[in-house]
């Protein structure tokens, strides 16, 4: 039996004559974990969609176990042993775990108890601690991921493809996921996974393939890579000095105190939280998941509400404010760029221009009876240019964009409101390194222009690289403040967990 379970030879896929992947040779070994990395738009998703039968090759060949194969649908791919776990999981949220596992394999007469027992046995065999009778919508991200994996294994998948599997997971869930993947590997399943977190590729993968502009740049053992080599292969230039690499030697001086949060409470997440934000500075907020950072700033932006009784004060430029909905906050110059762009950030089936224009309209609720197509088109084109959004045109739908470009649209939607306080919540989550550099440059530019910028991030190098002052949040309140000049990863992490 050949060591190669899946291969692609000179694989090319054209969309309207434009190559998404071009002459890509790829080999997946039996029982290996293979990481696929590259900037957004590098062709990773297209390559894996070819394997999973979502799209078909324009030219080139695919082989499974040495035999030519060209799955035309995901069902055909599943029948030949290739399953894909998508970033947005494909489970039916209103069904139970067991029903989801056996979806598509129903018989004429289905006994619910039998399905539950079979699912229980199967999940136990995989050592997955998920109750088969639980409704999927009530599960956490990691458990949903487990159900997806279980479904793939149940269908006797020999190859499982994960698209950004850890983007929605907490650090604890991520560790658990790594254990699952290693367990699958022991069972002889071959894994391909796409990730923007390069450390994950380095830790988890046996081999790494780097794609750039639809072409394969390099495939090598993971042990022969380090972060700098991957980044250089991904972007074609050395970004180590611009991306997190440089230790800050100067910080911007604090300007006017524009936002003061005093003893803010929102049970159970925000507990007596107090902090200030100054103009002309980037205030970084670090904390582990559940530290109440997002909730605190969602309250500031009117997305969430503080406690009804003794909920604390939010003082915006010497004036106490209490926003019950986001519109008055937007009008007062507060912009919140969400961490969950797919759910809260944009309307994915509408155009870039429309999304950006909606941001502008949000500043004038009820004040504009007539919409201007010309203004919409002009503002869309303007922001595409200003933020270097890579798209066919301003009428391109947001769903068609890569993660980094989608994030730029979300940012444009907020910046068009000309805010004074901009809150970025995990601004580079699920964004490729090239776009990360651009987003970081934008954030720095905003602070240089005198805006008060807040960056909430769980990624320490990002916090250290961007912030002028760093506030560490733990258990619902800020517990420590560092200047970027004397902050280290160790000090910050110590404050976050002790």
């Amino acid at each position, binding site marked *: 039996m050949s060591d190669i379970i899946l291969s692609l030879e000179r694989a090319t896929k054209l969309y309207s004559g434009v190559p998404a992947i071009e002459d890509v040779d790829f080999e997946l070994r039996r029982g290996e974990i293979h990481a696929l990395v590259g900037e957004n738009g590098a062709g990773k998703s297209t390559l894996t969609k070819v394997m999973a039968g979502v799209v078909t090759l324009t030219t080139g060949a695919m082989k499974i176990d040495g035999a030519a194969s060209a799955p035309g649908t995901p069902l055909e791919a599943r029948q030949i042993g290739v399953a894909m776990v998508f970033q947005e999981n494909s489970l039916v949220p209103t069904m139970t775990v067991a029903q989801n596992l056996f979806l598509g394999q129903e018989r004429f007469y289905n006994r619910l108890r039998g399905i539950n027992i079979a699912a229980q046995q199967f999940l136990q065999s995989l050592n997955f601690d998920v109750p088969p009778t639980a409704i999927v919508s009530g599960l956490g991200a990691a458990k949903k991921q487990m159900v997806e994996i279980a479904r793939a294994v149940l269908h006797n998948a020999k190859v499982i493809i994960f698209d950004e599997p850890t983007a929605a997971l907490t650090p604890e869930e991520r560790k658990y996921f790594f254990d699952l993947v290693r367990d699958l590997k022991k069972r002889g399943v071959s894994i391909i996974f796409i990730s923007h977190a390069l450390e994950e590729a380095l830790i988890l993968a046996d081999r790494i393939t780097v794609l750039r502009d639809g072409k394969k740049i390099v495939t090598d053992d993971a042990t022969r890579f380090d972060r700098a080599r991957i980044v250089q292969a991904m972007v074609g230039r050395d970004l180590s000095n611009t991306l997190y690499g440089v230790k800050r030697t100067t910080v911007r001086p604090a300007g006017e105190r524009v936002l003061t949060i005093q003893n803010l409470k929102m049970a159970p997440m925000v507990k007596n939280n107090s902090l200030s934000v100054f103009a002309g500075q980037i205030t970084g907020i670090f904390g582990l998941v559940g530290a109440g950072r997002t909730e605190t700033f969602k309250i500031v932006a009117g997305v969430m509400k503080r406690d*009804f009784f*003794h909920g604390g004060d939010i003082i915006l430029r010497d004036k106490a404010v209490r926003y019950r909905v986001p519109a008055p906050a937007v009008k007062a110059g507060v912009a919140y760029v969400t961490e969950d762009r797919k759910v809260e950030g944009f309307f994915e089936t509408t155009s870039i221009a429309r999304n950006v224009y909606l941001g502008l309209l949000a500043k004038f609720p009820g004040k504009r009876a007539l919409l201007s197509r010309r203004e919409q088109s002009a503002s869309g084109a303007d922001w595409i240019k200003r933020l270097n959004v890579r798209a066919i045109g301003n009428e391109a739908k947001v769903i068609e964009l890569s993660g980094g470009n989608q994030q730029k649209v979300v940012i444009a939607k907020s910046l068009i409101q000309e805010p004074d306080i901009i809150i970025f919540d995990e601004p580079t989550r699920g964004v490729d390194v090239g776009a990360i550099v651009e987003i970081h440059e934008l954030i720095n530019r905003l602070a240089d222009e005198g805006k008060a910028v807040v960056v909430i991030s769980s990624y320490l190098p990002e916090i250290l690289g961007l912030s002028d002052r760093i506030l560490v949040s733990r258990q619902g309140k800020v517990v420590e403040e560092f200047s970027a000049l004397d902050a280290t990863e160790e000090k910050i992490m110590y404050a976050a967990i002790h």
Partner: protein
Amino acid sequence: MFGGLRDFALSFLGRGEATLTVPSFDGALKPNQALESAETLLECDAPEDLATDGGKVYLADGASLGRLDGNGMTTIREFDRPITALASLPGGGIAVTLNGREVRVYSDAADATPSATFQGAGMHSINALAPAGDHALYATDGSATRNADEWAWDLMERGRSGRALRLDIKTGGITELAGNLRYAFGACGADGFALISESWRHRLIAVAPNGASKIVLSHLPVYPSRVSPARSGGWWLTAFIARTQLVEFVLREPAYRKRMMAEIDPEYWIVPRLSSGKSFKEPMQGAHLKTMGVVKPWAPPRSYGLVIRLDASFKPMFSLHSRVDGFNHGIVSAVESGDWLYMIAKGPRRVLRLPIEGLAKEFAA
């Protein structure tokens, strides 16, 4: 009636005027232990105020007026009553306030008789003096009902009888620049304005000669006190205590305050103090907090030490602290002379000094 209903609703919901919140110590007010590392120049009986002409530094210690030299104080003269405020005047003169009620101006610190004396005009607790041009003084009168050392009573009574005064040395006239202040405690001339600390409102105001005032710094997490000019521009603002939610709560409970003041020894009231940790009977020492499953001793600070450096536009640049576990608390005066910043920590009754060079670099936010 609607006002009453509104107040009840706000009090019930803990909103508006009735919020029990205090600003945080962050940014330029980020805590450090700078005051704990300051050199202790002198331990005194009752240090109250400092003044400088840029070279010599004068100290009011109880009823004694002295001059700081290398390692101690040289007594210049003794008064029959304690000094509550001190100012050095252009041309070598000095002004003192005795027992908060009488201001005396001496053309020279060693002169036997004063060149001008101010009494009456309702002066009750003059606690700060500052030159206002060549022939005048700014003064703050903390309370019309309480003596200078009874500030805690004034806080608990929610006093609002403080005044900012201008004393004309030539004519002997006293002009009230501002009234109804909630404990005025600190004055300094600033480009024709009088810079006044209003302690119980946690703010600095600039009062024009015609009495018009504007807030120049507010929302402080502390009770500000005396203010003095910094040589390179801007000011040194002292704060004798930090605000806490517990005290804010007590201040909103008139019945509780009334009973506390009637029945409890003032030493053990729930009020800020200039020093703490002397007795187990002190409030705010017995609380605890459960963190990560471990019960830890915890209490809001009863005393604190803080000096804030303000720039020329009254924006805090950095601050010097003595935290709850420190000793140099109750900072009531700070003046800059030569390369040093001299301070009075009234809690431990000390005169401290810190080299100014490097402070901005080390403690800037």
